[in-house]
């Protein structure tokens, strides 16, 4: 497929001025801090949320964002069509995004890294099969397959994690394969062989540490993709099911009230957009920082 022909993409990082290079670590750290804050907010949701995210209140339906409420804590981001507090639901919704996101990245990373190491180190038949599978998957609008599988198996947390996780293995496999191909012809590999080291030892103790930074970079970029994919599936009604709050589900619920109560969809949507932007930019900065050669992959 066309994607297998490397397009000549310039290594912009190499040409970037010193100011930009000095800024890189700070930006990456800021991105990391954002994710850490989000994780904290999600973990501490029961204490941070001003109200119960599931409790309905028909008298407070479609209440606009306000700094004070007559009956308890203020509804800073308003309420939805069932009178549930939008801010509280967003905090709980972050849990879904992050749990599915991190679990999917972990699954995709383990599978993709294992297959990439295998294909690169062993070569031969295993390599051919793995790379054909990777090409086939890239040749496929994955959202359609995900929708098909989830429609058949029924939406649930594990299904969601497996489908999103397996959608991401190709990225790891292709990059690691290419790097292992270079690494395995280096002298230190021959040296370990000569000293009697096994293949497993070479791969796990000597090659894996050399590709860790690539794995971290890809995982960060994949995290942004997984979070957006989860929200998309929830938006289509194929993700986490109500009443559990999720950002995609909230955007879906607020769609019908867009004209009268814009905040229901817009608040979780902006949170999603910001998260996606910050996480993927953090991935870019990490790449420039750790491994500029990855550009163009």
């Amino acid at each position: 497929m066309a994607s297998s022909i490397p397009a000549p993409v310039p290594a912009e990082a190499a040409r970037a001025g010193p100011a930009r290079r000095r800024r890189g670590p700070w930006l990456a750290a800021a991105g990391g801090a954002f994710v850490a804050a989000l994780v904290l907010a999600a973990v501490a949701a029961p204490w941070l949320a001003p109200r119960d995210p599931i409790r309905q209140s028909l008298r407070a339906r479609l209440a606009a964002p306000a700094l004070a409420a007559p009956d308890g804590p203020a509804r800073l981001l308003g309420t939805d069509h069932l009178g549930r507090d939008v801010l509280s639901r967003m905090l709980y919704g972050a849990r879904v995004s992050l749990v599915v996101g991190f679990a999917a990245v972990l699954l995709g990373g383990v599978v993709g890294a294992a297959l990439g190491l295998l294909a690169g180190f062993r070569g031969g038949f295993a390599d051919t099969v793995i790379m054909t599978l990777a090409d086939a998957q890239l040749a496929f609008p994955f959202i359609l397959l995900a929708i098909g599988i989830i429609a058949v198996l029924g939406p649930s947390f594990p299904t969601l994690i497996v489908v999103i996780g397996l959608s991401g293995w190709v990225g790891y496999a292709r990059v690691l394969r290419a790097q292992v191909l270079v690494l395995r012809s280096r002298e230190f590999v021959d040296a370990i062989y000569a000293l009697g080291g096994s293949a497993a030892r070479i791969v796990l103790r000597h090659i894996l540490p050399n590709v860790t930074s690539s794995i971290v970079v890809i995982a960060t970029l994949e995290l942004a993709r997984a979070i957006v994919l989860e929200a998309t599936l929830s938006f289509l009604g194929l993700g986490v099911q109500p009443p559990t709050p999720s950002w995609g589900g909230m955007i879906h619920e607020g769609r019908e009230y867009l004209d009268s109560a814009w905040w229901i969809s817009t608040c979780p949507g902006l949170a999603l957009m910001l998260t996606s932007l910050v996480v993927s930019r953090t991935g870019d900065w990490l790449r420039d920082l750790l491994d500029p050669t990855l550009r163009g992959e």
Partner: protein
Amino acid sequence: MRALFVFVGRRLARALVTVWLVSTVVFVVMRLSGDPVPLLLPPDAPRSEIFRVRAELGLDRPLPVQYGVFLANVARGDFGRSIHFREPAMRVVWGYLPATLELGLTAFGLAVLVAVPVGLLSAVRRNSLVDHATMGLALVGQSAPTFFLGILFILLFSLKAGLLPTSGRGGAAHLVLPALTLGAFAMASVARLTRSAVLEVLGADFVRTARAKGLAERVVVVKHTLKNAALPIVTITGLQLGTLLGGAVVTETVFAWPGIGRLAIQSIYNRDYPIVQCVVFLSALVFIVVNFCLDLVYGLVDPRARPR
């Protein structure tokens, strides 16, 4: 000449293997979905009737036989009858296809017409205000979730400003927001890649030579730079065409656009699996064909991409 045949043959073999893998995945997923017969019959149908329909659909035969029959049917474009529409699935999907093509091609055209000049401009005026503004926007466009972008557009341009219709298919006005939504990601990607590809070429020796011999800047940029930067731009643009069709599922749902993507989602809710399979298979096929053509174009345009 022989090398060319080998090249085309290998690409074709790969495309065919992919088509086969896709149809196998579709078959497996369909088997996982369980027995479709109860969906076809009224709930109080007698057992004998269930067995009759099962035999009629060939579901009582061994799995390998069913798989063979399925592959043969797919090759003939037969995906079975739609449960909801009571028509061959292929015919139903065929009827919805023009709307998706209209949307997809408009989005694609919009993306290319906007993104390539924007990318070129921001490369030539590197680090200017225009560069920072457009590339910032492109970053947002690249990471914004499609479905939320669509909702934001509806909120701002339809409901608040009242400029454009919120949903449905009709005149050109109906096309603007869905095409912008669907094309946003492609636009952002193409603009960013055009910028970096042009920047790369602008630093090349022959560009310095062209400037040194006194050519007008316009000639240097358009004739010497854009032509040489064209290959990566063509590649990513072609790849975007394929992903656009996949992205149509979400966009069509948001804008109630009567295309195959929305049809697929509705069919999932109706448990109308023949339609879902047909849409999945057709989209994958389009994607594979686009990639195949792209490989050929690439090989023809750039001798370096040909196998020796």
